[in-house]
């Protein structure tokens, strides 16, 4: 068994989670508190990766990233970067693919906070921004944790998108899920089993840690 695909998978999951966290926070805040009438449209767009088959997403990304397409050509000319068959391409794909898993729990967390919390903070002369990161965020630790874990786990399980735009390059785009698939194809069930077991064990440990931590957060909130 080769550790490279596993390492690549976790790197992709970590980078995707970090980028999405930064992108999703303002988005979740806006969705939670906006009075905008067309909010439903935005929510539907964000939710699309939940219901779209990954192969649809992968197919459109393959076309968009291809240098014979305007977007791919533009990226290649301006940045000198070809997104298809590259790690940055996988990161972009994963960010789109896991977007709802980051945004929805954050939005739910922010919405579930008592309105009085924000109002008290405003009354005491704090600005929106300060209220957000000093009052609101610390009070939705559990939602933040949930969204990070869901995104991380969802990205680890990514398969269809990578299969379409990855090109299966060892060390660049050959993530663990694809490696397992390849070994099964080549009838090396033993190796496939090793990969699968490692993934199973690691993801289980991560979830276990997270939920015990989460329970502690919740207990703190209940007793305070």
């Amino acid at each position, binding site marked *: 068994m080769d550790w490279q695909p596993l390492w690549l998978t976790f790197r992709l999951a970590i980078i995707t989670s970090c980028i999405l966290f930064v992108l999703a926070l303002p988005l979740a805040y806006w969705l939670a508190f906006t009075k905008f009438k067309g909010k439903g449209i935005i929510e539907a767009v964000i939710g699309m990766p939940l219901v779209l088959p990954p192969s649809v997403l992968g197919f459109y990304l*393959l*076309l968009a990233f291809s*240098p*014979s397409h305007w977007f791919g050509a533009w990226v290649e000319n301006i940045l000198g970067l070809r997104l298809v*068959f590259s790690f940055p391409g996988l990161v972009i794909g994963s960010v789109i693919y896991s977007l709802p898993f980051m945004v929805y729990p954050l939005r739910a967390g922010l919405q579930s906070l008592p309105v009085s919390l924000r109002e008290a903070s405003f009354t005491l002369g704090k600005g929106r921004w300060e209220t957000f990161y000093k009052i609101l965020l610390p009070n939705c630790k559990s939602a933040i944790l949930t969204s990070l874990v869901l995104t991380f786990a969802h990205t680890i399980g990514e398969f269809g998108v990578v299969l379409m735009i990855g*090109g299966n390059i060892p060390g660049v785009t050959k993530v663990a899920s694809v490696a397992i698939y390849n070994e099964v194809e*080549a*009838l090396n069930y033993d190796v496939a089993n090793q990969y699968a077991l490692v993934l199973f064990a690691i993801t289980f440990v991560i979830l276990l840690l997270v939920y015990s931590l989460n329970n502690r957060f919740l207990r703190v909130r209940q007793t305070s």
Partner: protein
Amino acid sequence: MNIKRIFFPVLIFLSGCSKPSEKIIVATAANVQYVMKELKTEFEKETGKEIEVVVSSSGKLTAQIREGAPFDVFVSADTKYPEEIFSKGGSDEKPKIYAYGTLALWSLSIPENELNLKVLNTDKVKKIAVPNPKMAPYGEAAVQALQKENLLESLKSKIVYGESIAQAAQYITTGSVEAGFTALSVILAPEMKGKGHYQIVDSTSYKPIAQAALLLRHSDNSPKKETSQKFYDFLFSQKAKAIFKKYGYK
């Protein structure tokens, strides 16, 4: 609104019973799918029996057959996978070679007179699609051909692996790569007519791609036994040979 009232008719509708099909199922490797359309038409005309074609990579089909998928004839892209099934007792007779595949280099952007293995080493080509040599015999052949020209090392950073010849072809035809290797049978398929240019790779530079078929085991009283045998024999008939030739097989 009574949910059950809606739910049950829907459930009954969805669980509609179907008569067990008399159609035999031919498990077909990706590179054979286009020629198989013509073979199917010809066979059905000849015998009046219908067949169903399931297309996937040889590796996937082998895994499915091992797990008991209800296929009747297996038309593989190589000899290794049918041998594997035969050795595990999935068939009463040894796999037989029905055709030899031809490897070709294909490109949308490079003109025909410049298209050869050497051009892959120039700046004109940033990425090259190769079917995954681990499971696609045509990928293995492509790697051998590149090795023979001493190009493999220098091209390493340019190669992307499609999971089958079909995906390699998809990478080439969407322009995601400048050039790539695939089976000639894919390029000559009616669906691909007039797309780009191709160059047949020197057949001495790779091990012949022998493609074997296997008649899968049937019980003696199986209604599909006779048709399966007929179709299997048809694959090796003169008529089928002529059709294979038309699609670039040897």
